[in-house]
């Protein structure tokens, strides 16, 4: 097929940092290109050059047979390039129809809004994709997956020939991902080109026709998806082989004393009759689809939500945990789902973040608080957890996702917990940081901590846990150990009605 978009020798630097170094690639019409790379590999820079946000320092952009030195945002739209960012850029207060069609009205230079027309235009675009989203509801009430479809519908209305999707599967459940993939394949068959930006290699391999891997601003792989497997991609992406943890799951954990025992814990309508026992040095993995109650269960274990009935025993004594301070005092720490909004104070330094639970929870008992006394605590954790930052005074917002997650962990560990509840700790971070966090989880459990790991990631469950619990509609639907189960079996259990 004729390539309709060609990038020739594109370079871009920011100050002294080279973001892209002579990247060339060609995309034919009607293919799905997987653009893969770790954080900081230049993926986002490349997208922003395509959408006209950045101007490349060097190189040409060929679209059909027109050559551009750079694109402006309006040229990009005119050439049919549409980027769907992770937040979808929708107005939550407006109806689905208006969100889809308003840009069309503005660009066609209309002055008057004809609402019937608006609904007709929106319907035509949306019904190509799905028929279960009503046009007259507010976008704010839709699920993430539905909002994504609305964003795609809007892109189609802008006569998009190339749709760039930036990490589109991050907030979706397995089922929604499957739906999205069949949708994207349908669009491809209609001649629309898609660039699928992701660092989930499994998904890229499954969906894409053509894969390009970037590392440190250079292209390290460019070829058909058929001729490459996931470990090779990982090698191109990280430049090194990442050994996956397979063994060292605690054999003798049955003889260990119990840390946390949960008996018939219920909180309608989220979960019912949950019982399990966590022993010293054990990692229990809990999974389930969104809405299965796994999130609420985690919040209940750490005292943010309160159970309606049931009991919790910590080291054999019955405890009522009413709030997060009591959880800390009983040695339970929590790694929240969203580190940006729930886990960290982004503008503050590493030290400030790490000592926060101590200050707030009263572990540091002082009437007056002198920051300088605690500087060494931050330094200590920075070197202990190998956080890549010049000093412990670096604001957390300047760190990469993986390093931010380490700060969250440091913050938890600083309360000297016996039990850690982790809610999706590896969501949205790159492969090598992920492997490091898995290693950390194992080493913590080897030190005798008990860990409850809530995750979406099936391979992660199999690699790091001693016991796996699958929640469905708030009940334990399946319990197993990694030795007795395969990835396929777990997916099957998860998705069957």
């Amino acid at each position: 097929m004729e390539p309709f978009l060609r990038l020739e020798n594109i370079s871009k630097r920011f100050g002294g940092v080279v973001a892209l170094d002579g990247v060339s690639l060609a995309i034919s019409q009607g293919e799905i290109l997987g653009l893969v790379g770790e954080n900081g590999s230049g993926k986002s820079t490349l997208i922003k050059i395509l959408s006209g946000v950045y101007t490349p320092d060097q190189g040409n952009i060929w679209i059909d047979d027109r050559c551009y030195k750079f694109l402006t945002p309006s040229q990009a739209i005119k050439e049919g390039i549409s980027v769907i960012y992770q937040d979808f850029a929708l107005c939550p207060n407006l109806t689905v129809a208006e969100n889809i069609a308003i840009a069309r009205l503005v660009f066609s230079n209309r002055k008057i809004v004809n609402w019937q027309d608006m609904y007709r235009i929106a319907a035509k675009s949306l019904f190509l994709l799905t028929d279960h989203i009503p046009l007259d509801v507010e976008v704010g009430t839709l699920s993430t997956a539905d909002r994504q479809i609305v964003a795609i519908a809007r892109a189609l209305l802008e006569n998009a020939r190339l749709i760039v999707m930036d990490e589109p599967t991050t907030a979706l459940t397995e089922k929604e991902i499957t739906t999205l993939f069949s949708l994207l394949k349908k669009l491809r068959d209609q001649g629309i080109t898609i660039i699928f930006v992701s660092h989930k290699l499994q998904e890229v391999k499954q969906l894409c026709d053509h894969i390009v891997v970037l590392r440190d601003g250079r292209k390290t792989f460019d070829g058909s998806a058929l001729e490459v497997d996931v470990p090779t991609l990982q090698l191109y992406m990280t430049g090194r082989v990442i050994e996956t943890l397979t063994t060292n799951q605690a054999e003798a954990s049955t003889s260990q004393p119990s840390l946390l025992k949960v008996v018939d814990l219920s909180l309608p309508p989220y979960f019912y009759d949950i019982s399990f026992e966590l022993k010293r040095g054990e990692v229990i993995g809990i999974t389930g689809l969104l809405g299965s109650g796994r999130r609420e269960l985690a919040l209940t274990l750490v005292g943010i939500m309160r159970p309606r009935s049931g009991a919790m025993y910590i080291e054999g004594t019955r405890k009522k945990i009413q709030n997060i301070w009591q959880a800390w005092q009983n040695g339970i720490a929590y790694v929240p789902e969203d580190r940006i909004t729930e886990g960290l104070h982004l503008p503050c330094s590493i030290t400030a973040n790490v000592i926060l639970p101590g200050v707030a929870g009263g572990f540091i008992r002082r009437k007056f608080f002198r920051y300088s006394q605690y500087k060494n605590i931050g330094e200590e954790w920075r070197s202990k957890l190998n956080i890549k930052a010049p000093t412990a005074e670096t604001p957390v917002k300047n760190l990469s996702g993986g390093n931010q997650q380490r700060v969250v962990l440091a913050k938890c560990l600083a309360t000297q917990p016996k039990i850690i509840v982790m809610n999706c700790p590896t969501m949205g971070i790159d492969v090598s940081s992920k492997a490091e966090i898995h290693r950390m989880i194992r080493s913590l459990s080897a030190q005798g901590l008990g860990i409850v790991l809530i995750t979406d990631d099936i391979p992660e469950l199999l690699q790091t846990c001693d016991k796996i619990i699958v929640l469905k509609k708030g009940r334990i639907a399946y319990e197993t150990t990694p030795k007795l189960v395969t990835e396929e079996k777990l997916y099957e259990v998860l998705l069957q009605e």
Partner: protein
Amino acid sequence: MNSMKIKKIISKHETVLLVAILLIGGIIGIFNRAFLSLATAFEILRGSVPYALMGLGVLPVLLLGEVDISFVGIAAVTSLVSHTLLRSWGYAGGLSAYVGLAIPMGAVLAVIVGLISGYVKLPVFAVSLGFWLMLYGFNLFFISPEMRFDLPSGLVGFYGEFLFRIRDPVVGETGLHIGVIYVLLCAVLIWAFLRYTVYGRGFYIAGGNREVALRTGYNIITLLCVAMAINGSLAAFAGVLQCAYKRFFDPILFRGTELFVIAANVIGGVSITGGRGSVISVLLGVIFIQLVTRGLIYLGVAPTWQQLTVGIMLTVFFVITGLRGKVYHELIRKLAMGRKGQSQNEKTR
């Protein structure tokens, strides 16, 4: 399909407010029969006119997610300045010259607030705090520290310009004031602008997600200036009308009522964070506040107790509307659980 539509209308905030207005009116009527008369209704409407105009003016600003309080100062300055100018020119006519002078002045003043906030990237609220003080200070220092009772002959009879007259046993001859028509005219114009023009939709888009507005090609600063121009013009109009009603020009006109106007908007369902609200919300909100304050007089509540009572009623109203959604969903969930048993309740969430 039809029942869906009915359900939608019933669940709307505006419908709830309308019911509340009728209910409160009815309750006051039980205690004081004189309250339930056309004369009272006309009086409430006439009293609502200036506040409704200001409320409509501040609506586009609130839609953008900004809060302005300088409009009352603008009303005070523009009315007093145009009065002083017109008197010094020996003007003896009616409202038209006042309006013609005050509205452009108001628009310019408000746009200045908008431009400062837009280019210096400050919230409108911060700039308008400064302007609020500055405008009243300007009035008292440069124009006149005293009230001006020297109305031109053409303006003296304005408070009694009725569309039609009725005789009322209690208050004598009264009628529907012509100001109501001005409000309706402005309301229809703003409604059409916000709902049926592509530019007007920009206020809702920018209020919902600023990024989308930029991407779609709206200029945020221009939007803000247009909103402020509407705000300033209507405030100036309201100022002149209010002075003509009261038959004197006041250097501290409307001082302290800016929060009533914003409260009326919020009661009507305009979101203080932007993106939600309509002309009907504003009108109902203003009438609600007027009804409550006037109703208290009819109930014989001493003036000293009025602010406290209005404050309590407003808080209760906000709490009820805030809880409404939650209580409603809880009720539905319980009903469904009772019927289908616990295992089904995942679906009802």
